[in-house]
């Protein structure tokens, strides 16, 4: 029997287990998936949790619920990958041999990377919402917060779901209006990028949203440290932004096991071919989702599209065929803008988000790069799709793994 080993049972790993158990012969291939966690979180829900839109039980389920029959789940901590000997060493020193390895260990927040971010103030006046605990603690804080300077902040790129902090700022505006206290809250969005929007068409179409919602933007801010005592963040250029409540997206880093294994870039992301998803570490090691260093968004939709292509490439690798250079960086993301509306963006490595309809040309029912109630309904419906289709490896009808240009208004762009 040959061994296929998947590290990580999050969105990507679970999808691959489901895809590959169907695709590979049970007589020839054992599939094992390793993860230390008990819970599979619906991470897009972490955005809604702080605003009491979702309840905690709506965003978590048991990890084993989504692992198919015929796949062995090991709930163990992983120490390192021994690539030269095709082995994975667990923390309990047990050794797993593999013929093919898939790294799906995702990304974690690393607040320790920013001086002064951790301390007594962490989860009291400085919060993240990229973890279940962070989102829940922030919800409890917001329930009783009396207002002041709310700073929504990105530490450095790349981050998981790059639009989430902007959505947080939009939803905060909506939340405080509904609570009748918007006049008591000053919302500032602080980013290391050149603005809240960086692509030309999105900037033109959406720039007005920030002004409309009275959200101030501080661009080009590369944080050096948090001065918790004086409640301000300071960047390398000595610029300061004061806060009463700091909601930050800390540095995102790949799992430490990647560093222990002796490969990975300066943020522990795995060097990976952006079209085939084979790693540059060794031919029999593949990577998917947030764990890779490919220049696509770190998002569940990206992982979903990658999974369809990686499943085919693993089969081609087994058959000794050339891998398909098919992944185009396709991402499809809803962006909540508050007040029951949302945007939808659909893009890839070369095509920036544009206006149009999705998934059916001229019909929709969803609208690209435009605020609609239907898009918001789509975002809410996505939770059901995630639990019942996406992580079980079911194809989502009418949405292809590579980006389609039909329905998109491309005449205003030259794909730069």
């Amino acid at each position, binding site marked *: 029997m040959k061994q296929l080993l998947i590290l990580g049972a999050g969105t990507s790993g679970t999808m691959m287990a489901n895809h590959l158990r169907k695709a590979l012969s049970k007589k020839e291939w054992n599939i094992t998936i390793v993860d230390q966690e008990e819970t599979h979180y619906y991470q897009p829900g972490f955005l809604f949790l702080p605003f009491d839109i979702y309840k905690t039980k709506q965003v978590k389920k048991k990890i084993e619920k989504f692992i198919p029959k015929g796949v062995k789940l090991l709930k163990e901590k992983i120490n390192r990958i021994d690539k030269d000997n095709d082995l994975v060493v667990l923390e309990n020193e047990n050794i797993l041999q593999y013929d093919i390895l898939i790294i799906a260990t995702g990304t974690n927040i690393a607040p320790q990377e920013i001086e002064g971010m951790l301390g007594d103030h962490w989860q009291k006046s400085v919060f993240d919402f990229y973890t279940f605990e962070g989102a829940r603690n922030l919800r409890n804080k917001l329930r009783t917060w009396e207002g002041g300077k709310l700073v929504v902040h990105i530490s450095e790129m790349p981050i998981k779901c790059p639009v989430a902090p902007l959505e947080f700022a939009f939803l905060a505006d909506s939340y405080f209006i509904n609570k009748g206290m918007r006049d008591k809250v000053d919302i500032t969005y602080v980013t290391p990028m050149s603005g809240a929007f960086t*692509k030309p068409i999105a900037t033109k179409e959406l720039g007005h949203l920030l002004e409309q919602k009275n959200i101030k933007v501080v661009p080009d801010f590369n944080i050096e440290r948090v001065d918790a005592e004086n409640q301000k963040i300071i960047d390398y250029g000595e610029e300061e932004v004061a806060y009463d409540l700091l909601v930050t997206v800390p540095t995102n880093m790949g799992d430490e096991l990647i560093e222990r294994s002796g490969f990975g870039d300066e943020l522990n992301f795995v060097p990976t071919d952006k079209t085939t998803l084979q790693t540059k570490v060794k031919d029999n090691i593949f990577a998917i989702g947030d764990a890779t260093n490919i220049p696509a968004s770190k998002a569940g939709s990206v992982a979903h599209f990658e999974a369809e292509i990686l499943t085919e490439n693993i089969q081609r690798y087994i058959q000794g065929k050339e891998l398909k250079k098919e992944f185009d960086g396709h991402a499809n993301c809803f962006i909540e803008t508050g007040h029951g509306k949302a945007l939808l963006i659909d893009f890839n490595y070369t095509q920036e988000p544009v206006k149009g309809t999705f998934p059916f040309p001229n019909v929709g029912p969803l609208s690209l790069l435009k605020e609609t109630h239907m898009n918001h309904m789509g975002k809410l419906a996505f939770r059901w799709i995630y639990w019942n289709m996406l992580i079980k490896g079911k194809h989502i009808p009418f949405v292809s793994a590579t980006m389609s240009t039909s329905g998109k208004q491309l005449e205003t762009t030259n794909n730069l």
Partner: protein
Amino acid sequence: MTTTEKTYAGVCVTCNEQGYLTNFEQWNKDVGLAIAKEEQIEMTDKHWEVIQFLQEQHKKQVPLSIRKIGKSGVVSIKEFYQLFPKGPLKISSRISGIPKPVSCI
């Protein structure tokens, strides 16, 4: 996106609406020097070392970040800010003739 033709140091180059070269092949050191002048940066050997690093990373298709510059061994992040004050990555990218770092929207 609309592009415009601009002349730097006698070389006609294509720029996007934010003033970034759209074709790295059109860049040479004199073009870089002329863009630096527009950005009010007086170029020194250290500046050019940073530019060279950015261009090498661009050729390898490595996305650039402040952290990457800090770990480059060329300059520390503090020095990077001193060389190219206020938004050093976007200013140095423009002088290098490479695209501005962007997010997904």
